[in-house]
């Protein structure tokens, strides 16, 4: 009686099985790496409809963040500026620049400029800019050195772990409230020490329970 399977069948099967397992494992780990928020989310830097440079405005010219993002201290939402805000200066400054064509069009027609959102949180997360800025969390903590970016890119993963890490130990990220928009500010001494002092002075207790962020 001839065997149904050849002699090496067992060996092929074992090799095949281990290749299969290997393929699955590597697939899972590669995708876990590829799609991990740390990699997939950071570095996101979409092209904007207007070639606006934060480096020029906030860095070289030294404009305060709040000139344009004026709601950041009062509202949960740090709104991008209205076209009017841009035109306050650009009626005088470079009024004919071809780069500003979409801005002038928007100003004339009243149609908004379709900026592309860079920092996006899921809908079930209720992040509030005003609460953070007024507690002394600087723009730079979440958005990085925007004053050095020509085209804004996401530098932090904005994951829940990343948020909660800071909520559990906020001291190194708290600075005097009037310095939150000074992106290049470096404390004299231990930032955590200054943070702890400010937290005690201003009674800062970031929430660690669910409804602090999820409602």
């Amino acid at each position, binding site marked *: 009686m001839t065997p149904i399977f050849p002699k090496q069948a067992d060996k092929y099967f074992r090799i095949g099985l281990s290749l299969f397992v290997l393929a699955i494992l590597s697939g899972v780990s590669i995708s876990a790496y590829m799609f991990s928020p740390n990699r997939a989310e950071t570095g996101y830097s979409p092209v904007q409809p207007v070639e606006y440079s934060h480096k020029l405005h906030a860095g070289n010219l030294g404009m305060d963040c709040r000139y344009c993002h004026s*709601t950041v201290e009062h*509202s949960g939402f740090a709104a991008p*500026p209205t076209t*009017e805000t841009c035109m306050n200066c650009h009626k005088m400054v470079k009024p004919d620049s071809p780069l500003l064509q979409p801005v002038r069009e928007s100003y004339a027609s009243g149609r908004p400029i379709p900026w592309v959102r860079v920092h996006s949180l899921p809908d079930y997360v209720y992040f509030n800019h005003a609460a953070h800025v007024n507690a002394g969390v600087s723009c730079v903590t979440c958005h990085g050195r925007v004053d050095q970016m020509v085209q804004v890119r996401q530098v932090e993963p904005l994951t829940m772990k990343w948020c909660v890490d800071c909520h559990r130990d906020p001291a190194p990220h708290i600075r005097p409230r009037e310095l939150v928009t000074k992106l290049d500010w470096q404390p004299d001494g231990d930032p955590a020490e200054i943070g702890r002092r400010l937290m005690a002075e201003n009674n800062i207790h970031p929430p660690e329970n669910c409804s602090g962020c999820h409602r």
Partner: protein
Amino acid sequence: MNQTGKQYWRSLEQLSNTPQFSEWLHREFPESAAVLDSSSRRTMLKLMAASFGLAGLTACSRPVEKILPAAKGSEEYTPGKPVFYSTVMPLNGAATGLIVETHEGRPTKIEGNPEHSSSGGACSAFAQASILDLYDPDRARFVTHETRQSSWDEFFAFAKPHFDPTQMGAGEGLRFLSQTVNSPSLDAVREHVLRRYPKARWVEYEPVSRDEELAGSELAFGRRLQAHYRFDRADVVVSLDADFLGLDSPEVRYSRDFSRRRRVASEKDSMNRLYIAESQYSVTGAMADHRFRMRAAEVPDFAADLARELGVLPPALTVLNANSRGKRAAAVARDLKRSRERSIVIAGPRQPAEVHALAHLMNYALGNVGRTVVYTESPFVPQLTALKELAEEMAAGKISTLVILGGNPVYDAPADLEFGAAMKKVAVTIHLSVSQNETSALAKWHLPEAHYLEAWGDARALDGTASIQQPMIRPLYGGKTAAEVLAALTGYKDQRAYDIVRNYWMAKWPARDAESMWRRCLHDGVIPGTQYPLVEPKPGKAPELRPSEAPAGLELAFYPSASVWDGRFANNGWLQETPEPMTKLTWDNAALVSPATAREFGLATGDLINIEVQGRQVPMPVWIQPGHADGAISVALGYGRTRCGRVGDNVGHNAYRIRTTANFHFGSASIQKTGRKYRLASAQEHFAMEGRAPVREATLEEYRKEPHFAAEHKGEAFSIFGDFDYSKGYQWGMVIDLNACIGCNACTVACQAENNIPIVGKDQVARGREMHWIRLDRYYTGPEDDPQAVTQPMNCQQCERAPCESVCPVGATSHSPEGLNDMAYNRCVGTRYCANNCPFKVRRFNFLNYHKGLTETEKMAFNPDVTVRMRGVMEKCTYCVQRIEEKRIQAKLEGRRPIRDGEITPACAQTCPAEAIVFGNINDPNSRVAKLKKLNRNYTLLDELNLKPRTSYLAKLRNPNPELA
């Protein structure tokens, strides 16, 4: 059993404890097996595999989101912050002053305006839900001409020459039909129109009528007066079939005033006493200390008995008073006499004019007039006779042009007027309404009307207080108001709704102050000095009253629906799904009969019967209502619409088809059984709390003897879980006063609007899957023929030792340091263990992605501060944590000040007309909630489980007359 020895029951099935009932009760999610219709397990697995694959693909690229800042900014508006505007909602000749929350230019939530006399900061379920009507995708989107899409231009091209006086003449054949006009500026336009066409006539009609009230005041005083009751000053109230806490009061003021007299702080306090004589069990009946159930036709006899006892009518010649009705009347009359100048006799709008006249005269005799009852000139005119004349003229072919401004007479006019047939005899019919309805289908032209939240207007409350109706958003579908359409047709001096309203009011003020007055009125939501002046009426002779005759067959009475009113809210899913306060029926009306009548006719709940009135028939399912008068049927109007939209079409049965001018309020009817069954979806047995005593109740006398009757003996129980430290910071808690709660459902709808709660539909309600985060449990106690009823609002009790938290395998529900039982919806995987472990049955599971398929306009109604939950997620009340967090952040921004008491109000508490719900920080001994929790009526539910709920209740009290006990 509870301490006062009463047994509470929710339904007749529970009272008789049928096996079906216990099975229903013992399954946490009844009928949860058959969920996915018609798809097998195998197909489901295939679909799941496919969706996993697709999910993997979509994750490869990040979706591009756009931010669109306004090109031009506005001073008043900060992106991300809501803006609040005052406005007013007209309903049935009354008006409720409102404050509307808008987000990024879209209205999302309605609250009562605290400055407005009719609302006092609260509002009804109707006002709460009206925001959904604004976003109704079935609204009329364009002008329709003979079922063809047309435009405003085409309409005016036809209508302007047609309405030109050279064509129209003096308007012999011109008639206008509208709902009750209580808008001063529309009234001015109407005057202009009627001057232009002196022979034209304007008829007003509402199916929920005030005609008898009006006629009653004419009988009593010889002039048309409007009575205003001051329930906050009355010790004894006698209601003659008046559901003044519920459907017979389109404004919420009476609820607030009445419940102020039921807020008992200690056993030394007094409270008012309410008697009611009625047929259907109303919410006012549930509040009553004595409820005399009788057919509506017997109420005049009771009124006459009472009037004789009070000397308003001459004493009876025969010894009528020997019967039990007479004895009751005598006892009530003695009680009234003891409370001279501090009592009220009020007659309901269904009762004939004579009963109203008697009530007025009794108030006069008791010295109540000018104290608890005040009068103003009535702005209303009799409607039914005018409508009858109009229908006759139309049928006779005398009318050539009929302009119907709002309303739906083809559906809701009395059946014997045959309004639809009469309309076909009119050459030009123009109908203006928010959405196309039964009347639009027969009109030559249909014009889209602007919703009250998107148009300028004004409205007067019943006491005369006028408010500007301020739009929140531009008309979504190019609608116009009635005033605008009339102004365009007749060349009124102003054309835009804004100018019509503004110029009308500006002309009333001195030119120097007019602009600032206008701004002030817009801001406050009230125009000062517009209340009607009080008048002092002179009473006339008492009317003749004949004793009622026993009706041939059964008595049939019509009531507005607690859900859809007269039918105008039929396409509103929130209201359709709100359980009727007493029957707990959703998505249906029914023929309510008493248990004895059901036995007599061999009827069971769910039997389909034919109700016949003068040769007109309508099928109607039976619902056996404990406490209903024997020999009588009650039906709710407003159901059985055939042309209102995808929500309300063919829901329930149309009672207007058997409502005629002769039995407009009640009359006799006969019934035939059809032998068929009809499925009714009632929420009354859902989430029952078997045999425990959730409601604690005593009479005032018992309470005085035993002030701590509500408290249970509490042994020190320990918990195997470590306790949180609740001694510091804010600790949120709630107190619900069962003695003040009137069971009106406003909290349920307010919660639905605030928390983006989905509508599930009749089939899902029948399976026990309604999603309301706060429900109103209604318990009966006493014999099934004549029980008392108690309502109890039930939301998440926020247990300090929450049993739901310890069983969640993924930590989706956990405790906050401020004592809230938090839900992280995005973490929930839907095991439903938490709901299974919740003894209060307040957790709701989203079985079927109920928000699926919403149109873009409906999505505009969502509150952006609350997550819109998906299928497979458990959800529940969080004390409106979004409002807590908003105020906390605001307090931080304002120099890290403490949050003030009363600053945070959950949606249910804010809208409660009875002010029965109080929320606050229990760690602050001066907060209202902490003070209430110290009262001896305070108790928490299910003490024996050692859950320490943060919500506590104040026990219910009744104040019966010892003579009648």
